[in-house]
């Protein structure tokens, strides 16, 4: 392969180790920079029964919660169920919120927990149906043309271990920092970094033939 070919392929190869590093994507959805004082005031108002404060708390966090649980679940009905459950738990558990983390982080940690538990329950129920569908799916797979990158990547992300998948989605897709992920998931930022690295490595391995193509 001559130098020119390498250069032209390098431009479109997502696995190229020599490519120019681009800024981390989409940081607009990061946890909002609310001060602890704002949070405390809002919580006090909610606890005092102020309906407008409840709505304000909901408005401030619903987009992020919904996006996060949707990314994890991939289904609008489940995302709505999990978002609803998250806010129900958040409102009823506000008295237990000790302010060690930002309110947004605390709510996101509830959302992740609700979504993952919901998915685990769903998986257990669906497990028996998978066996029945397997033959049909396998037959269909033979007929399907080579899937495009999005489909391949989506399947690869689905196959990631749960912890890797959540960290990957939060960091590389939703733009959370490792510190935010660590606080949300209750792990050290270093653990989040390690899981992200492993997730990326696994995705690269899974999509290696695409990289060569």
């Amino acid at each position, binding site marked *: 392969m001559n130098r020119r070919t390498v250069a032209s392929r390098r431009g*479109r*190869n*997502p*696995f*190229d*180790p020599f*490519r120019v*590093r*681009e800024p*981390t*994507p*989409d940081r607009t959805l990061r946890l909002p920079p609310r001060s602890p004082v704002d949070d405390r005031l809002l919580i006090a108002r909610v606890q005092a029964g102020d309906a407008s404060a409840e*709505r304000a708390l*909901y*408005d401030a966090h*619903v*987009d992020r919660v*919904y*996006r996060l649980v*949707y*990314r*994890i*679940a*991939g289904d*609008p*009905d489940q*995302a*709505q*169920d999990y*978002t*609803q459950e998250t*806010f*129900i738990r958040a*409102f*009823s558990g506000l008295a237990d919120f000790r302010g060690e983390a930002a309110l947004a982080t605390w709510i996101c940690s509830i959302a992740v927990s609700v979504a993952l538990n919901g998915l685990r329950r769903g998986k257990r*129920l669906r497990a*028996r149906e998978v066996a029945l569908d397997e033959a049909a799916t396998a037959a269909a797979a033979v007929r399907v043309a080579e899937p495009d*990158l*999005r489909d391949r*990547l*989506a399947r690869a*992300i689905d196959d990631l271990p749960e912890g890797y998948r959540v960290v*990957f*989605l939060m960091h*590389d*897709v939703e733009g959370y920092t490792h510190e935010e992920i660590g606080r949300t998931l209750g792990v050290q930022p270093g653990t989040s*970094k390690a899981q992200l*690295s492993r997730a*990326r*490595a696994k*995705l*690269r391995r899974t*999509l*290696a033939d695409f*990289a060569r193509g």
Partner: protein
Amino acid sequence: MILDDDEPLGPELREAARAYHEPGPVPREDLWTRIQMRRESERRAVAPGRRSIGRPVRVLAWSAGIAAVLAIGVGIGRMSNRGPAVRGVTAPVASALAPAAPAGGSPREDAAYRLAAAEHLGQAEAFLTLFRASVREGRQEALASATARQLLATNRLLLDSPAGSDTRLRFLLQDLELVLAQIAQLAPERRGEDLKLITDGMEQDGMLVRLRAAVPAGTGMTFRQGAL
């Protein structure tokens, strides 16, 4: 190809990753309404001396969980009890509730299955009665879909159990599965039309009448009170 662990994904992959489970617009108002209804339902359930649909539905949710555990227990018992019966082991409670052992499993297994089925059908009957009343009064019961899903899970376990050889019970469970699946999949935006279709279908099938006929009088509630 070995890459630096911290190397971010390339632009093409990042773009593809952003399309993974990409959320549409957030249904803010719908969600807020659901949250408010659920909280109101819970508040009413806690408030003493007030009639509320919230508490029965909550109790049903718990009961559905307990029934699921029961049904799983039946399944496990069926799987692990292939050998001859252990001497001296009897099932006094279960056998008292089994009017006639259907063909297929041992009397003990059939009795356990019947107990689990009776409990489940009792809960389904109570749930559908509340659901129908709720629809008639024009209330939007936020927990209906969730409770239906839990009952559906138990229903499927019972349908799948090798101990369930009673054809009439099987037909009833299959029809019940259809109704529960419809409620479980209620779409918020089409709730009005769907609710009418579901309740009309229930009337046509005589679902509540069949459920009441299938549940031995007092069986479900007695057990539920004991369990809870």
